[in-house]
C-alpha cells in the first residue's frame, strides 16, 4: 500500500512539474542508411558520422531546440529502406530524412518522401532523374547528379591534347549515365570515342580480357567509372597489364577514393579523377574538417564523409534561418533552398529549380608523396549547376 502511494505521488508530481523535455520537442533527423549489409556499409558510416560531426559543432541544438539524430539500417534492401523511412516519420516523428547511399534504394525512399511530403535529402546517390524529369519538391540532393560529376571532363581533356578515349564501366544504370554524361560534351568538343566496353555488373573483377582489348583500341586515355573493390582491381590491373606505359587512366574520382588508395598503392600514381570533392581542396572549412576527422578516425576523410559533413552544415544553417521551426514542412524546404553554406567543397546551395546541389567540381591527379599517395588539384570548375533536364519545380 505504501509503495502504491509512493508511485501515485511520484506520478502526480511528474504530471504537475514541467520537465525539461516538455519545454520544446527536439528536432529529429532520420538517417536511412545501409549500415549492416551490402557494399555501401563503409560509405554509410562515413556519411552518418560526419553529418553528426557537423551538428555537434553547433552543440546539437538550434533556436532552443535539441537536435536528435535517429539511425535506421536499410540492410541494403529497397523494401526495408522504405519501411524504415515510414517508421522514422510516423512512429519516431522525424522532421527530415537523410538517405540513401546507393541508387538501388533511391526509388523506394524517393516514392515515400515525395508521396508523404516529407523533406528528404540524398547524401550520395547520383541518379540523374531524381533531380531531372522525376524530380519532387520534397527530395533534395546535397551530393551530386551523375551528369554533374563528369560533364566538365571532356572539354578539359581536349585542352590537354587528349583526343582519343576508350570507355569502360559496369553494365548498369549508373555506369551508363556516367559514360554518357562524359561522352556527349567530349565528342562535342572534338574528341573521339575509340571503344566502349560494359562488363556485366557484379563483384567479379577480372579485367584482364577487357584491358587487353583496350590496348588494341590504342586510345590516348581511358575514362571509366568503378567504385569500391572493383575500382582497386581495375587500377592495379591497368598497371599490371602494362597499359600505364602508354595510356592515361582517368575516371569519375571514386576510382582513386581515399578509401581505395591503401589497396591501390603505387598503381594509383598518375591516375586522374574528376569529382565534387578531393581531400586536397584548399579552403579553411575543408582543412579544419580533415584535421578533425583524421584526429578522430585516424584516416583521411573521403568524399562520402565530406558530403555527410556538408549535409549536416546545410541542414543546420536552414534550421537556424527558419528559427528552429519544423512544423511547416514547405517552409522548411524553402529554408533549405534559401541558404548558402561554405562547405568542404566550397560554396554550396541547393538549386530551387532542380533540387540538386550547385557546387564546384575538381579535376585532380593522384601522385606519389614519399611512400604514400597524395592528390594534386589540376583544375577547379566553379558553381557547376545542372540544367533542368525535364524537372519543373
Amino acid at each position: 500500500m505504501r509503495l502504491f502511494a509512493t508511485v501515485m505521488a511520484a506520478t502526480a508530481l511528474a504530471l504537475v512539474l514541467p520537465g525539461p523535455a516538455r519545454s520544446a520537442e527536439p528536432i529529429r533527423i532520420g538517417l536511412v542508411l545501409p549500415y549492416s549489409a551490402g557494399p555501401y556499409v563503409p560509405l554509410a558510416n562515413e556519411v552518418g558520422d560526419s553529418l553528426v560531426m557537423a551538428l555537434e559543432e553547433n552543440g546539437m541544438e538550434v533556436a532552443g531546440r535539441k537536435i536528435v539524430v535517429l539511425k535506421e539500417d536499410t540492410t541494403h534492401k529497397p523494401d526495408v529502406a522504405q519501411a524504415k523511412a515510414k517508421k522514422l516519420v510516423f512512429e519516431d516523428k522525424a522532421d527530415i530524412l537523410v538517405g540513401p547511399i546507393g541508387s538501388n534504394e533511391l526509388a523506394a525512399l524517393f516514392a515515400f518522401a515525395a508521396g508523404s511530403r516529407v523533406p528528404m535529402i540524398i547524401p550520395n546517390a547520383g541518379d540523374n532523374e531524381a533531380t531531372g524529369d522525376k524530380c519532387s519538391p520534397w527530395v533534395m540532393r546535397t551530393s551530386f547528379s551523375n551528369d554533374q560529376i563528369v560533364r566538365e571532363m571532356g572539354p578539359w581533356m581536349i585542352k590537354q591534347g587528349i583526343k582519343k578515349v576508350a570507355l569502360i564501366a559496369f553494365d548498369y544504370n549508373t555506369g551508363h549515365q556516367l559514360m554518357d554524361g562524359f561522352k556527349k560534351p567530349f565528342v562535342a568538343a572534338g574528341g573521339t570515342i575509340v571503344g566502349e566496353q560494359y562488363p556485366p555488373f557484379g563483384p567479379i573483377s577480372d579485367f584482364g580480357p577487357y584491358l587487353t582489348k583496350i590496348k588494341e583500341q590504342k586510345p590516348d586515355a581511358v575514362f571509366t567509372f568503378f567504385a569500391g573493390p572493383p575500382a582497386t582491381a581495375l587500377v592495379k590491373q591497368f598497371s599490371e597489364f602494362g597499359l600505364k606505359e602508354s595510356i592515361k587512366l582517368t575516371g569519375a574520382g571514386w576510382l582513386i577514393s581515399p578509401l581505395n588508395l591503401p589497396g591501390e598503392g603505387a598503381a594509383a600514381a598518375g591516375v586522374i579523377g574528376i569529382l565534387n570533392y578531393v581531400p586536397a581542396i584548399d579552403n579553411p572549412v575543408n582543412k579544419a574538417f580533415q584535421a578533425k576527422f583524421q584526429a578522430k578516425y585516424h584516416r583521411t576523410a573521403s568524399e562520402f564523409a565530406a558530403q555527410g559533413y556538408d549535409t549536416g552544415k546545410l541542414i543546420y544553417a536552414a534550421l537556424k534561418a527558419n528559427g528552429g521551426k519544423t512544423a511547416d514542412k514547405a517552409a522548411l524546404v524553402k529554408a533549405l533552398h534559401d541558404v548558402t553554406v561554405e562547405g568542404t567543397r566550397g560554396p554550396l546551395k541547393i538549386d530551387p529549380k532542380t533540387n540538386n546541389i550547385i557546387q564546384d567540381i575538381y579535376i585532380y591527379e593522384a601522385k606519389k608523396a614519399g611512400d604514400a599517395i597524395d592528390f594534386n588539384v589540376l583544375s577547379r570548375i566553379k558553381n557547376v549547376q545542372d540544367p533542368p533536364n525535364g524537372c519543373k519545380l
Partner: protein
Amino acid sequence: MPDPASLVIQLLNGLQYAMLLFLLSVGLSVVFGLMNFINLAHGTVYMLGAFLGLTLVRATGSFWGALALAPLFAAAIGALFYAVLLRRVQGESAMKQVLVTFGLIFIGIDVVRMIWGDYEEAIAAPALLADSVRIWGQLYPSYRLFVIALGLLVAIVLWLGLERTRLGAVVRAGVDDRVMAASLGINIEAAFFGVFCLGCWLAGLAGVVAAPVLQIYPGMDVAILIPTLIVVVVGGPGSLKGALLGSLLIGMAETFGAVLLPEFASFMIYAVMVLVLLLRPGGLLPARPAA
C-alpha cells in the same frame, strides 16, 4: 580480330581462368562419377578456402603459408561435412542430395558473413609474383602465369596419380563399375571419402589462388558454381580429361566472348553447353561411355 600479340595475351587470360575452373571442377566431377553424388556445396568450400586464406595472410603476412594451410583446413571442413551430413544422404535420391547441399550453400554464406563481414576483400599477390613480365612486347602479370603453371601441374599430378598408382586404379574401377569393384573386395566407400577430401582440398586451393585475381566476398561460391557445373556437364562427369577439356572450352568461351561478342558475353558459356549437349549428350570425354 585481335592482333597476334593481343591474341596471345587473351589466350593466356582464357587459360588462367580455365585453370581456376579446372581446380574446382575436377574434384566435383570425379566425386559425381564415382558415386553419382551431387555436391552443390563444393563452391562453399572454395569460398571458405579463400576466406581462411585471407585470415592466414593477415595473421602471418605470408601468402605461401596461406596457400599451404588454407586448403588443408578446407579439406578438413569438407571431411566434417561428409562425416556429419553428406554420408547420410549418399545413395539417396538426387533430389535429396541437391536439397541438402543447396541448404549448405545458404548456411555457408551466412557463416562467412558472420565471421568475416559483408565486405569484398582481396589478397595481394606475393611479392615474388607482384610484377609483370613482357611477353611478345606486352606486359602480363606474373601471378597469372603462376596460376596457369599451378593448374597444369595439378592436372599432371592428378593424371599420374589416377593412371599410375594403385589408388588411382581403385578410383577408376569404382567409376567404371561400382558394384563389380565392390564385389572384388575394393572399399569403394573409403575411396570415395578420399576423393571427396581431395576435391575439397583442391577447391580450397582454388579459393586462395583466385583471391589475388578475383575479389573474395560472401556469395563468390554461387558466382563460380554455375560455370563449374557447366564444365562438369560439358567435359563429361567422372573424367579428369573431361574436366580439363571442359575448363579450357568454358574459360576460352568466357574470355573471348567478353571481348569479341560483348553483347552475348553473359550468354556465351550457356550456348557452348547447349551445343555440346546436342552433339554429345554425355559430355565430351565422359568416364563411362553413354549406355
